[in-house]
């Protein structure tokens, strides 16, 4: 029900936004009437994201850790990874899983700023990187708990916007499929409820998105240029 009410809210916003278009900014922007008093919400810290590019199709495993969570990921090039509600410093190790000299290149981005790059062309080569000084952090004893992942598999190369939320916190994300969104330490309120709303920018095809919660595929969508996913 919560989501239903929210969906109605999103629908109103969507209609208004789409009809208004560029008038939004010329009118002084949405929120001009300020009925919801948006000015009181502080900025969140910048999101950290990663792009793993190189020889398309190269399989890899990656281990990402921030100050409170570890994620193990397997995928293929290219893949974008975004940590929502991140907690730097952040460390990443990307390991090629193939015996050839194909290139794998790791890019670490904080907010919109490229922080560093690393790469390997070795067989089963490793690319490592970090955001922030990681000398003094210890690997957390447990993996992300809960481990919440939104995997936007397609349409390939689609630029999309997403709103990712738990019961007390929401963040916007812009990325390009395929992209994996990791939700670090969502609030336990309401049973650890999480949800996300996705909106395509380029309309290259229908969304293909999975929500994986603690390793279990709990919801998939395979159509449309907008999509809503939730758990709990």
């Amino acid at each position, binding site marked *: 029900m919560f989501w239903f009410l929210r969906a109605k*809210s999103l629908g109103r*916003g969507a209609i208004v*936004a789409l009809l208004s278009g*560029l008038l*939004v900014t010329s009118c002084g*922007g*949405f*929120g*001009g009437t300020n009925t919801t008093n*948006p*000015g*009181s*919400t502080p900025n969140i810290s910048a*999101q950290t*994201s990663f*792009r793993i*590019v190189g020889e*398309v*199709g190269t399989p890899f*495993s990656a*281990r990402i850790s921030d100050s409170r969570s570890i994620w193990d990921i397997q995928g*293929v090039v*290219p893949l974008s990874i975004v940590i929502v509600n991140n907690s730097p410093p952040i460390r990443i190790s990307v*390991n090629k899983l193939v*015996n*050839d*000299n194909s290139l794998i290149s*790791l890019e670490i981005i904080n*907010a*919109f*700023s490229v922080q*560093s*790059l690393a*790469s390997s062309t*070795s*067989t089963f080569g*490793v690319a490592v990187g*970090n955001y922030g000084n*990681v*000398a003094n952090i210890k690997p957390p004893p447990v993996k992300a708990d809960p481990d919440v992942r939104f995997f936007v598999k*397609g*349409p*390939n190369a689609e*630029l999309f*916007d997403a*709103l990712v*939320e738990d*019961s007390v916190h929401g*963040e*916007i994300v*812009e*990325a*390009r499929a395929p992209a994996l969104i990791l939700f670090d330490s969502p609030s336990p309120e309401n049973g650890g409820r999480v949800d996300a709303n996705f*909106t*395509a*920018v380029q309309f*290259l*095809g229908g969304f293909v998105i*999975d929500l*994986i919660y603690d390793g279990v595929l709990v919801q998939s969508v395979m159509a449309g240029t907008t999509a809503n996913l939730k758990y709990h």
Partner: protein
Amino acid sequence: MKDLSSRWAVAILVAPVMLILGLTFSGNSHRAAAAQTPANKGVVAVAFISSFQNSPNAASFQRIMLNVVSVRLNPSTDPNVSDFAGNWVTIGVPAGVGKSFGVGEVSTGSNFGGNFSSSNNNVSIGEGRSEIQIDLRAIQNIAQIFNAQAITAKTFHVFELVLDTATPGNVVPMCPGGFPAGEGCINYKAQFPQITPTPPVPLSIRTFSASGLDLSNSQHVVTPLVIQVDPGLGAPPTASSDNVQINPSITLVTNTPGTVPPAPFINQDLGSIQGTITTNVTGGFVAARPQSITARVAGTNNIVETQTLPNSCNGKKTCEFILYLPAAAAIPSGPGAPGGTNYDLVASAKGVSYAVRSNVNVIAGQDTDLRATPFAVVSRGTVNFTGKVFDLCTSVGVQAATLNLLVPDPLVTTTCAPVAAKPFPPAGCVVAASAATDEVGNFPLPGNGNVPAPFSVVPLPATGKSYSLSITAAGFDRTPVAVTANGGVLKCTPTTKTGACNINLSHGLMTVNVSLGSGTGPLNVLIAAEDTGTNNVENLTLVNLPGGVSSMPFTMNVPDNLNPGADGNSVTALDLFASTQDLFNGSPQQATGHSFAVTADVTAPDPPSGSPLACAAPVVADLSGMTCVGHGSVGGNVDNPVSTDTVVLSKDGVQIQSVPIVPPGASGAGAYAICAPADSYTLTHYAQATPFPTPVGGPVSVTLSAPVMVPTPAPSPGFTPTPCPGICEVSPPNANTGCLTCTATSPVNGF
């Protein structure tokens, strides 16, 4: 929360409206794009090749990398055309990620909050710029294509290489032979020359060509834009906190008019392939079903280039094509002759069969003519091929598995079915299509409206014929599956479904007791398992040793003892090695400072058994003795180098590292460079061969020099030395009085 949601919804949905207004959908970059090139456009493939003529210190570095954003082209004949002038065309270098449109801001006129900009007045929606790091060491004397894009078919004269302005590159120096010097084998940032008074940061590195890159007459080819990059590398660092100066320059490797029709041009760093495709489809080739020809690195699924037949072929049943591909130079005689680079070629389209050719040798500056034996595609139904890959022990989906659909080259073999004790895939088998599984094991990953998904246009095999599907995933047995046609859909054997191919991958388990020789965690340890006596790694995993812990067991997937090796025989034993992932000054490094732990010839586990099937009990092995010894490095030159040769570093019979040599024709041909912990090893020169690389001569022993303590200036009034970081320890002994720095080992040559 609901209020916040609606505000965010507005922000999210306004941004697309604004962005869409500024978007153009043409020029979607994808090297495997199968759409026909529009009439007014030509496809350009960005290729780089490195040179170190302006980098006399290059031999002092193990790795030299540039952080590349894009290549820009301008048709202006003014070499100094403004970076902000019109007509610039940008081709992003990372493939498969599309263009980055930067940041769009939605001004709210109020403190909106919850965004990731530094301003409290705007909601910023966007993405960071896509970049790719290119190792110039890996592209010496042989060009490499990174991305392709359809652009307006003009003649371009001005070319720019756009690097990351903040960190244009990274370098890894070898251990120094003299002091003062910074630590070797760690990552340093590169920087452009620092000139005072401070000028504006250069946007890019530029070159001008009066003859230019002519796309106006290149509608029927993918035109490579070969850019030679010299990093202009400065001196190695004198302190571990230094940046290393680079002053890159580029030159265009020009396409000169061709002499062999229909080759429109030749390029000294590319070879060309001419071929003919025939079809029996009524009406011939048609624009609605573009006929593509794809070149892959021979024996792999790595696509180098894809192009479609030009519009002029429409309505014809026979048409010619020409491909330009990166190629090594000719070797007239002796080891490695005739030189060049081998490719597999695949002709494919909707509604027709595959036609393939294996192991086509291409030599730089030369033409390979295949027209005498056409690629014959015939009318055939094409279908979508989907399915799922499972772990045989757990029935859980396998992530990131690779599925290669093999098709026989009729000039070499009639089938790609596995044969006991023979190499798989058999000689002459070409990867016609390749796909990967997603996070739950389903394949293929989606495509989009412009680029179809892998396996979405698979022709049904002819009656009585089959394809072989080779499935690989780290830690699992390499698994072949026969794919046949069954009533208009594809069927896998063995499988449980028709139309969707469900595949079980077998594997075993290995419990590795990892222990440090000294010290405790927190520490990350990489553990690798490889076929015994080879460099063929089967799985690699990362283990966290928690703080205060010096050893712990870890269980990983490894192939079982029925896993077919490259020669077709089962691999019944594995070699293991482990290395720590060390930090230097708070940043993880690729080169470890702890000695490697190795264990050779560990019996591979039995395959799953029982009902229901379950993995056999794990095989137990030990990897111990990782001790902080510091970095070391070794380099030199091998005899009789061939472009695909490697040097392998081994310890106690376990192969640990394999590095390529500098290919013939390049400055320093035969050179190699290795970073490894200061320990004793053997080095072996290997030549590429099928099914295994073969040693060239015997191994040579080497002991890498140990680090030395380089004194730092004593404290004095107004000067307090900063403690030196170490590769293994956050605060090495005597860090306040000296820097523990690795040192060069005498070159090892002539093997």
